[in-house]
C-alpha cells in the first residue's frame, strides 16, 4: 500500500528524517513509536505531501507520489488526522464533515457517519471546536472516513484522552481496519498500540531503528518504555 524508501526531510538547515525506509501493507495497522521530536509527524506530512523540503521515494498503490500535490493525494484516498485533530472552528460539525470532497466506494455517506457517531449528529449545528476532545477526535476520524480514504494517517489520536475514550478510539480503528482501510498511526501509548496495530516501527532521531511485531513489543515493554522516557 505505502512504500517509503530512503526518505529524508529538513526544516531549514536541520535534518529531521534520515533515509527512512518502511512499508505499510494493505489492510494493516502500523504504528510509528518514538519520542517527541523523533520525526514521526514530519513523516506523515511527507506522505500527505505537505512537507516541501524532502528527498526520497514515497510510493502509494504502486505509484510514485513525488510531486503530487496534497489535494490529489487526498483524492487518491489518503486521509490525514493531524495531531491537533484539525477541527475547523469556523465550521459547524456538519460542515466539518461535508467540507472535504468525498468519492470512491469506501466513502461513508453522512447517514452512516451519524449512525456510527450519534453524538456528532446530536451536535451537528455546533461549531466544530465546541466539542470535547474525544468528540473532536471522533469528528476528525469520521471526516476522513466520509471522504472514502483507503489509507489513514493518524497522528496520536489518543493523546490527552481518558481511558474510556481511548477504548472508543481503539474500537473505531479496529472497525475501520475491518472495512479494509490501511492505517499508519503515531502512538506513544504502547499498550494501546498493541491492541490495534499489527506492526510497529521504532523511530529515533529521524531514523527507523527497529521494526517489531506485537509479541516483541510485549516482551520488550519495559525496555521500550524506558526508551520512550515513560
Amino acid at each position, binding site marked *: 500500500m505505502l512504500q517509503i524508501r530512503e526518505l529524508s526531510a529538513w526544516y531549514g538547515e536541520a535534518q529531521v528524517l534520515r533515509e527512512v525506509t518502511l512499508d505499510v501493507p494493505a489492510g494493516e495497522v502500523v504504528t510509528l513509536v518514538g519520542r517527541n521530536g523523533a520525526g514521526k*509527524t*514530519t513523516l506523515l*506530512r511527507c506522505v*500527505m*505531501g*505537505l512537507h*516541501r523540503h524532502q528527498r526520497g521515494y514515497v510510493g502509494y498503490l504502486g505509484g510514485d507520489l513525488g510531486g503530487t*500535490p*496534497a*489535494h490529489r*493525494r*487526498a*483524492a487518491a484516498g489518503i486521509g*490525514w488526522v*493531524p495531531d*491537533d485533530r*484539525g477541527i*475547523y*472552528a*469556523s*465550521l459547524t460539525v456538519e*460542515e466539518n464533515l*461535508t*467540507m*472535504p*470532497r468525498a468519492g470512491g466506494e469506501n466513502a461513508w455517506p453522512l447517514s452512516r457517519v451519524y449512525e456510527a457517531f450519534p453524538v456528532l449528529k446530536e451536535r451537528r449545528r455546533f461549531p466544530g*471546536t465546541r466539542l470535547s476532545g474525544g468528540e473532536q477526535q471522533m469528528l476528525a476520524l469520521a*471526516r*476522513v472516513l466520509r*471522504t472514502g480514504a483507503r489509507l489513514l494517517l493518524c497522528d496520536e489520536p489518543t493523546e490527552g484522552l481518558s481511558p474510556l475514550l481511548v477504548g472508543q478510539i481503539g474500537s473505531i480503528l479496529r472497525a475501520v481496519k475491518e472495512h479494509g482501510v490501511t492505517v499508519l498511526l503515531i502512538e506513544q501509548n504502547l499498550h494501546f498500540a498493541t491492541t490495534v496495530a499489527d506492526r510497529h516501527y521504532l523511530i529515533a532521531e529521524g531514523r527507523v531503528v527497529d521494526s517489531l511485531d506485537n509479541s516483541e513489543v510485549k516482551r520488550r515493554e519495559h525496555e521500550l518504555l524506558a526508551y520512550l522516557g515513560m
Partner: protein
Amino acid sequence: MANFVQQCFNGLVSGAFLALLALGLSVIFGMLGVVNFAHGAFYMLGAFGAYVLLTNAGVNFWLALAAVPVALAVFGCLLERAFIHRLAALDPLYNFLLTFGIALVLQDLVKREYGVTSRPYPPPAELNHPIDLGLFNYPGYQVFVLAASAAACAAVWYLLTRTRVGVVVRAATERPELTRALGINVGAWVTPVFGFGAGLAGLAGVLAAPMRAVNPLMGADLIITVFAVVVIGGLGSIVGSVVAGFGIGVATALCNLYVPALSQTLVFVFMAAVLLWRPAGLFGREEARV
C-alpha cells in the same frame, strides 16, 4: 443623547469603509498568508475608476458602483495569476514585499497621470440632501454608504456561511494546509478569492469618491488603520474584521468628541493591547503551525 447617537453614527460611516477593506484583506490573508499591501491601492483605484468613468465617459455613480468593483476583481485575478501566484511556494514574506512594490507602482502610475491633488467627484443628486433619521438629520449620501456597506457585509456573510463556496473558503482561510490535505485544491481558489477581495476594496473606493478626497495617496493613508483593524479583529477572521471595522470607527468618532488628542493613536493603542492580551486578535484563533 442625540449628540452621542450622532457621533456613533459618524463612527459607523467611517467604520463602513474600514469593515469593507478589512474584510477583503482578511479573506486574502487567511488564504494566502499574505498581508496584501496593495489593498489600499485597490481602494484608490476604485475611487479613480469612478472618477475616470464619470469624466471621460459620463458614466454615473450608480453604474460605476456596479462596474468598477467587477473591473477591480478582474484586475485582482490577473495580478494574482501574473505575479502573486508565482511566489506562493516561497515564504509569504516574498509576496508581502511584492504587494508592497505593486502598491507603489500603482500609486505612482496614477500620480503620473493625474497628479497628487484631489479630483472632484460629486455625490449622486438623488442622495445630495439630508435624511431625517428621527433624532437628527444626516447627509443622505452618508446614510447610503452605511446601508450599502452593511448590505455588502451581509451579502458576504451570507455567501460565506450559507453556501458550499463559503464552507470551503472559511476552511481554506482558517487552515489552508489542512484543507489541501482534505482534498481541496486551495491554490485554485486563491485567484478568485484575491479578485473578490480586490473587488470589495474597489467597492469601498467607489463609495468613498463622493465624500472623500480622491487622490493617489488616499489608499496609503487609510490602509494603515485597516491593517490595525485586521490585527484587532483577528487575522483571517471574517466576523472579526467586520466587527473590529465598525467598532474602531465608532470608538474613534467618540474619541474625537471627548479626547481628540488620542483619536489618532486610539486604533494602535487597541492593537497593542489586543496583541498583548490576545495575540491572535479578538476573534482569531491560535494556530499550531508546524
